Each structure stands twice: as C-alpha cells, then as structure tokens.
C-alpha cells in the first residue's frame, strides 16, 4: 500500500503536518505557527497536483457537454430576453458566490471558513439561478395558449453529472454523520474535533483534526440549505412560463422556440447541478482527506476504521474529478451564454 501514489501523498502530508505540529509546540507564538500549519496544508504540492489531475479529467467530461450550446436565435423576443436574464443572474451568482466564498474562507483559522466556502458559493449561485427563473416576464396578449405536456425536472437534468452529485452528497452526509458519532472533544474542548481510540493495552491514541461535529454541524446545515435551494431552483426552471405560444397561435412542441426554450431550461438545470457539484466536491475532498489522515495517525485502529480509511482515500481523487467536471461545466456554460448574447443581441 505504501507504494500507491495516493498513499504516498497522504504520508507526505502526514510528515509535513507532524513537522508543523512540532514547530507549533516549540513556537513561542502559537497563533502564528498555527497559521503557518494551515498554509502548509493548502499549498501542499501533492494536493495541488491531485487537484490539477482531477480538474483535467473533469474538464474532459465537461467539454463533451459544451457542444450543446443553447441557441436562442428563435422567433420569440420573450425567449431571447429570458436567455439574457438567465445569463445575467447566473454570472452575478458566480461572481457573488466567489466573493462570498473568499470572505467566509477568512472567517475561522481552524478551517471551518475554508470548508464552508464552496457550499456558500454553490448556495449563492443556486439562489441567483432561482431569481433568474422566477423573474421571467412574458408580454402577454389577450389570447394565450398552453401545451398540456407536463414538464418534468428529470427531462432537463444532465443525467451523469446529477448521479455523480447525488452520490457525492450522500457520501458526504454519511461521512459527516459517522465522523460526528466517532469524534471526541479536542484538547481545548471543541466537540468532535479529535478522534480518540483506546487500544487493548490501555494506551489512548488521539488524532486530529477530525471532521466531527465542530466541522460537520455548519457543513451539514449549509449543505442542507443548498439541497433545498437546488430543489426550489429546479422547480422554478420547470415551471417558468413557456414563451412563444401566444405569439404563434399554434402549439407545436417541435418548433424552434420551444426547442430553444427547452435548451435554455437544460442549461439552467445544468448550472444548478454543476454549482451543487462544486458545493459538495470541495468539502467532500477536504473531509475525506483530513479524516483519512487522522485515521492514519491511529496505531491500533480496528478493522472497520481501516475500511473507512481506505474508502475515504478512494473518494479523494473522485471528489477532485467531480470538482473539475462541475467547475468546467459552470465555466463552459458561462462562456457559451456570454458568447450567445454577443451573437444575438435582443432587438
């Protein structure tokens, strides 16, 4: 196992972390040393390499989806205006989310701010998409028509990315709940920030930081909020007024306006899923990395603990792939939407 690159990465990190801890103990200024330790964690070269590889693999998956660029050059002015509105709100959400993530990442020197940055980013994007859909405006005429076809959320979701995000969210939730039950208080009395195991010989092994309640509580709360916001945004996308019918006087679900409207809904749904992917992938990577590192530090870990440790190690590269996939989907759709706006200005 020690020959595995990932295992090597974790051991490298462990050594660096141990050196930091020693420096921390010997340092006259504990706060400064603690800060140094966190900088070490964030700029760990193997971690950055892993992130790059994951982002690269994820990009390949995302680029394959970029071919279906929404074409809103249809006959409906309402549709083009809605496309512009969706684009503006999505971009505002991306910028607002990034600003929010930067601000919250500086909140807690013990890493909770960094952990909550991605879920907050996702939440802001989801709220923005929701606003873009619910503020849709149609120029109504006295005679209006509507198709009796039922629009369903699943018709607009990107199947594979959605499946990946659901699996990642489930894994994150289970990991956090499990870590909360297994965690114990650390040396300063912070609940669930340490893992303590008493060996058969009576020696107590402690390791941390552990993703227990100290981290899991706010993360679960924000993830839950994000899931609720994603559901609301998806229903808003599906229930937005269908433009075009009242102008043409005919109801044909294969006409260009309807097809373009469906493409626009698909893009919004993809933004929702991709933002959720970013919101989940980063904390999942963080939780599993720190959890696995803490478990490596326990010498007399029971078999079940080792199984969890290997499971978490396996999740780390998968979470980076999901991160790359989701991030590139967001970026790709953003670029495509802006390009579309330049090509077809509203008349």
């Amino acid at each position: 196992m020690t020959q595995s690159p990932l295992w090597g990465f974790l051991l490298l990190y462990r050594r660096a972390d141990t050196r930091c801890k020693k420096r921390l103990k010997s340092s006259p200024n504990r706060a400064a040393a603690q800060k140094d330790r966190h900088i070490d964690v964030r700029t760990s070269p193997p971690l950055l390499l892993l992130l790059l590889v994951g982002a690269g693999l994820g990009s390949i998956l995302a680029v394959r989806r970029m071919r279906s660029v929404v074409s809103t050059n249809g006959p409906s002015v309402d549709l083009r205006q809605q496309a512009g509105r969706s684009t503006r709100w999505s971009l505002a959400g991306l910028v607002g989310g990034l600003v929010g993530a930067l601000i919250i990442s500086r909140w807690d020197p013990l890493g909770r701010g960094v952990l909550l940055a991605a879920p907050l980013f996702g939440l802001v994007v989801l709220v923005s998409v929701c606003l873009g859909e619910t503020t849709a405006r149609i120029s109504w005429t006295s005679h209006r028509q509507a198709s009796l076809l039922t629009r369903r959320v699943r018709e607009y979701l990107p199947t594979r990315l959605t499946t990946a995000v659901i699996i990642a969210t489930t894994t994150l939730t289970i990991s956090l709940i499990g870590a909360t039950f297994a965690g114990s208080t650390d040396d300063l009395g912070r609940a669930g920030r340490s893992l303590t195991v008493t060996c058969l010989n009576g020696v107590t092994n402690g390791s941390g930081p552990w993703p227990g309640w100290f981290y899991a509580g706010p993360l679960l709360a924000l993830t839950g909020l994000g899931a609720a916001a994603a559901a609301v945004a998806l229903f808003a996308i599906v229930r937005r007024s269908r433009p075009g019918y009242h102008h043409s006087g005919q109801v044909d679900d294969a006409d260009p306006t309807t097809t373009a409207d469906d493409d626009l809904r698909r893009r919004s749904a993809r933004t929702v899923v991709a933002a959720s992917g970013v919101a989940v992938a980063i904390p999942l990577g963080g939780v599993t990395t720190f959890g696995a590192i803490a478990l490596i530090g326990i010498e007399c870990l029971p078999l079940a603990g080792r199984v969890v440790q290997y499971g978490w190690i396996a999740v780390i590269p998968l979470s980076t792939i999901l991160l790359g996939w989701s991030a590139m989907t967001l970026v790709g759709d953003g670029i495509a939407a802006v390009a579309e706006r330049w090509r077809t200005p509203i008349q």
Partner: protein
Amino acid sequence: MSKQQGAAPAIGVDTTDPTPPYEQVRRQVIALIASGHLGPDDRLPPVRQLANDLGLAAGTVARSYRELEQDGWVRTKRGGGTRVGPSPPSAAVQSAALADLTSTFVQRARFLGADDASIVTHLQQAL
C-alpha cells in the same frame, strides 16, 4: 401527458371573453377528453405550470381542476398529479357538457352578429 415531439393537446384562454378563465379551461379539458385527444390516465400539467404558461393565477387553474374532479373527468392523487379518469363520466354528464359547449358557441356567434341560419350553416360546415 408525457413529453413527446410534435403537436400536443393544448388549451387557450381569451381574456376578452366574458366567460371566466377557469370556465374556459374546464370546458376545453372536457372537450379534449370527450374527443379522445386526452385518454384515460393521461397526466395534466401541474397547476402552477399551466397557470404560468397561460398567465393566470394558480387559484384559477386549481378551481378548474377541482371542478373537473368533482364532475369525475379527472382524479388527483397526492404526489401523482392530476390525471384523466379511467372511464369518462356518465352519458348524462357528457351530454350536459356538450350542451354547455353548444350554448357557449351560440352565445359567442350571436355576439358577433350572426343570425340562426348563419350559425347552423357554419356548424354544418365544421361538421
């Protein structure tokens, strides 16, 4: 109705028509069921979707659905949406619906200034 390509059953609302919008929706759904365009167990769109697409308040469409359910044309299940009933209502109810539609047609034709002979001629041409 599930998603499919091509022309789909549709309903329209005319806001200048003196008939209330909920009644317009109700009558058209009945006409679609009676003509076979909507079959047993076909799903109707959710209230909010249809209301948004027609630019109506959700309560207006909800009232249409409620009255259709009371007359036995559709059935609503929690979580299952609103679907066309397994069998159409009794012949008497169908006859009443037809009389209702005919009455509306005649009323609107007279509103346009058409006399009885002209109405009958146009009706025969449509048949």
